């Protein structure tokens, strides 16, 4: 029977039709589609790679930013510390200077006071001596008002003078 014997007519038409379909689809059909699909899958792959790269870049950028921030912060801390140290230094220095100045002033003052005191003392001394001379003059004048008194004094002086070399 005809089921398993290939019929020449159908064979002929099948070769013609399948050949034509193959020709048409292989020329204008499948290659167009597969090429585009391939292009797209390449594109997707590239895009994914690019996205990954961008992500990494962004990440490194962020870390760099963080680093810069940290650095700035550290610098700021350092500057603050330095400033406070400088302040302390200035204050202590000022204090020292002020102390020294005060001591110098004090010493000078003391010197001046001493000098002043000396001057005052010497003035006082001369005043006192002048005064005592005047007082003595006055006393002398009053005691030596009579001749007898002058003679008594001369005697005593003479006594005193004569006894003195015997000693």
């Amino acid at each position, binding site marked *: *029977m*005809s*089921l*398993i*014997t*290939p*019929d*020449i*007519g*159908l*064979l*002929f*038409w*099948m*070769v013609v*039709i*399948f050949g*034509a*379909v*193959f020709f*048409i*689809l*292989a020329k*204008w*059909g*499948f*290659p*167009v*589609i*597969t090429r*585009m*699909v391939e*292009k*797209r899958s390449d*594109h997707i792959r590239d895009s994914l790679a690019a996205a990954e790269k961008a992500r990494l870049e962004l990440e490194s950028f962020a870390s760099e930013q963080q680093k810069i921030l940290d650095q700035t912060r550290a610098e700021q801390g350092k500057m603050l510390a330095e400033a406070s140290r400088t302040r302390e230094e200035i204050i202590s220095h000022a204090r020292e200077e002020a102390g020294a100045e005060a001591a110098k002033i004090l010493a000078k003052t003391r010197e001046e006071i001493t000098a002043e005191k000396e001057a005052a003392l010497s003035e006082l001394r001369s005043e006192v001596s002048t005064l005592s001379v005047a007082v003595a003059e006055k006393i002398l004048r009053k005691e030596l008002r009579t001749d007898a008194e002058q003679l008594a004094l001369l005697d005593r002086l003479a006594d005193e003078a004569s006894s003195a070399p015997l000693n």
Partner: protein
Amino acid sequence: MRTAGIIAAAVLLLCGGVSWGGEISPLRFAPVEMTVEDPSPVEMTVEREAPSPVISSEGRQAEVEKSPEEEETLDMEEYLFGHISDAYEWHILTFKGREAAIPLPCIVLDGGLKVFSSERLAHGAEYAGLRIAAKGESHEGKIVRASDGTRPLDISITKNVLGLMIDSLLLVVLVLLCARWYRRHDALKEAPTGLAGLMEPLIVMVEQDVIKDAVGPEYRKYSPYLLTAFFFILINNLMGIVPFFPGGANITGNIAVTLTLALFTFAMVNLFGNKHYWKEILWPDVPIFLKAIPIMPIIEIVGMFTKPFSLMIRLFANMLAGHIMLLSTIALVFLTAKMGPVLNGSLSFVAVLFGIFLDCLELLVAFIQAYVFTMLSSVFIGLAHQQPETH
């Protein structure tokens, strides 16, 4: 694929008494009187391996049980053959004794080109010294010379040829429309929509998963052929399931069609095979005494032909079996028509349920067979492009 084959075989067994012969023998159907216990309408002889004694005795039993008084029921042979074989007209339906059929052009080369409508040969009529061979003649159902019953060169547009043309046109239109989408759109910026969205996953699946893996690095050169083969088989398989015009023609269950497909694969494998492939065939790496008396080369050369032969038989047998299974199941409705309303009704119900199941199975088989043909073709092409192993 093998699973599907086993299922199909099991279903065939359930469906009717199938006797398994060792040699290639034509399908033969004998009308069998129906009984409730044995609803098998057909007795088939199908070429298969592993004959089973139980089954074959069943088959013989079915033959023995054949009733001598053949009632006026459905003629199973005509019914089945009318659906699975090629014809000069496309029969659509018979309604109240009147036939609706599309007459097709007959083209015969017999001492000059003769082109005429198949209507002229209808019902055994004779035209231009030609007629259609009657039942029992050597070229049954084919155009023969009226004088001596021999075949002239007949390249008529038969039912299968028209079916092939329609399906091929459909395929070409589908693929070219899909290709047009890619020409008109920027595939890098848009996702495919509509037809392209439907076709693309299939094309990508076949190309990336089947062709690329099996053929190897040179797959681009062969992917147009393999894709064409896949979609050609797929669309013809699917159209074969559609029960009415323009579907229903048993195209991929026809040996001439599968033979052509197998020949194309044979050509693809052998025309572009590399040096290593031919060396493996003609001077393989075996002890010299196997080559001096050319045992291995002969085996390899036989292997060259058995590969496409298996492709041809596999597709043909699977699709034919699917059609016969479906037709047999539906025949239950008509075969039980004279057995009273209860039996007829219940068996019709079963037949419809089973028919739905078989239709779903056939959808699966349609895809699987296209897939398997493509995959094995890819593997054969890949084998012809193997590089010698470097140790």
